[in-house]
C-alpha cells in the first residue's frame, strides 16, 4: 500500500468533490471510462474522492451525463509541488547539486576500521594499507581489495592474513597476526644441565640424561645436575643433549637502597584544537610546535562506525632541567622498586615458600629490604665440548 501511495505521489493526484445529480451513476460512468477512483467518501449531499490527473481531465463527460458538478478540493503529489517552485530555479539547482555531491562523496572511503590485531598497532596497519591506497578520501573504485591484501601481507610479515572489505563508504580491515614459532631446544649438540644458582634440590625431572644429584642435596652455581653422557651396558658412552628440570629451594635477597633518581617536570604546556572534516584538518589556533607533541583524534561515532567528522586535540609541553627526587618521595620509590623486583622473582619461580620484609632507615627516609625462599628451576644448558681430533 505504501508503494502505491508513493507512486501516486510521484505521478500526482487530485482530490475532488462531486455534488448534485446521480452520484452512483457518476461513479459507474467513471469506471466505464477507465477513470480510477479511490477514497470515496459519501457526505450528506456530495461525494469526496481522489483520482489521477489524467483521470480528472476526462471526468467532465461522466459528470455531464450524470448531472453532477465536480470541483477540485486539493492537488497532491510531486508534479504540483514542483510546479509551485518552478520560478525558484535556485532550489532545484541546489537540490541537483546536493544529489551530485552526495553521489560523488559516496564513491570515496570516509571511515576505516581495523580489527584482529594484537601486537601491531592500528597506526602501523593503517600506514601499510595507506601505502596501498586504502586511506580516508580514496576512491573506492581504485581499490583492488585482493591486491591490497596481498601487498600488505608482504609489507608486514607479522601478518598471516589481511583483508579489506568496502561497505558503503567504510573500509573494514581485518587482519590476523602470525603466531611465533616456539623455541625448541637444540638437541643436535650434546650438553649437560648445570646449576645456575645456589640452592637445595627439591625435585628432579631428568627426561634425557642421568641425574647427578639427589633430592635434598645442596648445589652451588655451576654444579652438574643432569649429565648428557650416559653409560651403556657394554661400558661405552653416549653423548646426548640432556633435558629436564631441577627444582631447588633458592634464597633471593631484595634490596632497594639506591634511590638516586632525578626527573623532569613539565614546564610549559600548549594546546590546540583542529576541526577534522572529510580528511581536512582546519586549525583553530596557533601551532603548538613539535617538542613532546602528541595528538588525539576524536571522531563522531555511534560506537561502531566512525564518521569522517571530529576534533583533533594537539598537546605539547617543554621539560624543566633535571630535578633530584625529594626525600619525602624516596620511600615511595623504594616501595615501588621492591614491588617490581618481587614481581620478577614471583614470575620466575614455581612457588614462593616464604618472605621476610624489613624496613630500614637511612638519611631520614625509610627503605625496604627482604629475603624470599622460592622454588625454581635452576638448570641451564652447558654444551659438552668434544675433541674429535
Amino acid at each position, binding site marked *: 500500500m505504501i508503494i502505491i501511495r508513493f507512486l501516486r505521489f510521484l505521478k500526482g493526484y487530485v482530490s475532488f468533490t462531486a455534488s448534485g445529480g446521480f*452520484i*452512483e451513476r457518476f*461513479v459507474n460512468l467513471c469506471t466505464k471510462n477507465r477513470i480510477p477512483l479511490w477514497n470515496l467518501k459519501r457526505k450528506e449531499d456530495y461525494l469526496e474522492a481522489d483520482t489521477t490527473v489524467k483521470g480528472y481531465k476526462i471526468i467532465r463527460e461522466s459528470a455531464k451525463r450524470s448531472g453532477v458538478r465536480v470541483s477540485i478540493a486539493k492537488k497532491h503529489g510531486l508534479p504540483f509541488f514542483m510546479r509551485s517552485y518552478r520560478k525558484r530555479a535556485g532550489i532545484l539547482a541546489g537540490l541537483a547539486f546536493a544529489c551530485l555531491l552526495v553521489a560523488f562523496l559516496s564513491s570515496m572511503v570516509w571511515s576505516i576500521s581495523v580489527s584482529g590485531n594484537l601486537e601491531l598497532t592500528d597506526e602501523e596497519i593503517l600506514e601499510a594499507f595507506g601505502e596501498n591506497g586504502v586511506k580516508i578520501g580514496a576512491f573506492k573504485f581504485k581499490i583492488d581489495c585482493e591486491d591490497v591484501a596481498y601487498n600488505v601481507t608482504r609489507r608486514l610479515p607479522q601478518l598471516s592474513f589481511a583483508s579489506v572489505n568496502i561497505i558503503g563508504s567504510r573500509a573494514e580491515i581485518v587482519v590476523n597476526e602470525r603466531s611465533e614459532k616456539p623455541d625448541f631446544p637444540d638437541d643436535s649438540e650434546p650438553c649437560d644441565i648445570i646449576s645456575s644458582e645456589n640452592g637445595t634440590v627439591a625435585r628432579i625431572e631428568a627426561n634425557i640424561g642421568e641425574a647427578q644429584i639427589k633430592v635434598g642435596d645442596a648445589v652451588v652455581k655451576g654444579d652438574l645436575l643432569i649429565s648428557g653422557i650416559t653409560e651403556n651396558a657394554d661400558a661405552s658412552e653416549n653423548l646426548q643433549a640432556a633435558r629436564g628440570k631441577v627444582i631447588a629451594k633458592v634464597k633471593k635477597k631484595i634490596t632497594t637502597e639506591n634511590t638516586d633518581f632525578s626527573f623532569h617536570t613539565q614546564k610549559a604546556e600548549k594546546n590546540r584544537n583542529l576541526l577534522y572534516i572529510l580528511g581536512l584538518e582546519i586549525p583553530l589556533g596557533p601551532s603548538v610546535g613539535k617538542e613532546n607533541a602528541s595528538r588525539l583524534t576524536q571522531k563522531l561515532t555511534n560506537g561502531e562506525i566512525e564518521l569522517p567528522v571530529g576534533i583533533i586535540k594537539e598537546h605539547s609541553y617543554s621539560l624543566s632541567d633535571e630535578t633530584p627526587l625529594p626525600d619525602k618521595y624516596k620511600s615511595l620509590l623504594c616501595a615501588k622498586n621492591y614491588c617490581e623486583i618481587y614481581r620478577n622473582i614471583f614470575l620466575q619461580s614455581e612457588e614462593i615458600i616464604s618472605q621476610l620484609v624489613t624496613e630500614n632507615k637511612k638519611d631520614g627516609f625509610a627503605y625496604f629490604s627482604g629475603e624470599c625462599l622460592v622454588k625454581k628451576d635452576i638448570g641451564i644448558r652447558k654444551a659438552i665440548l668434544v675433541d674429535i681430533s
Partner: protein
Amino acid sequence: MASSKRRKRENAESERKNTLKEKLEIPEMLDSSLPHIEANGNREIIVDGCKGIVEYSQSRIKLNTGALLVSFVGDDIEIKNYSDIQTVISGNIFTIEFESVG
C-alpha cells in the same frame, strides 16, 4: 410470447448447467457468475467482480455483482478503492444483505 419462450429456454439452460456442476462437483468459487467476497472482520470487505454501484449513502452501499445485489450496512462506510476488478469497502459494517437479480 417470444420473450416468454426465451426465458423458458434460458431457465432450462441454467438448470442444465447447475445439474452438470452438481454432477461434476465443481466448487462454487469457480462459478464466474457469483461474486467473490472477502471480509477482514467487519472493518474491511473486498468484492471481486463488481459491475456497478446501485446505492451509495453514508450508511449503505449496494453493489451490483451480476447475479446478486450485495448491500453493506454500517457506520461511516466508504469505498477505499473502486474498479470493476476489485472494490474495497471499509468502515464499521453491521450487515451484509444479498438479493437475487431477476
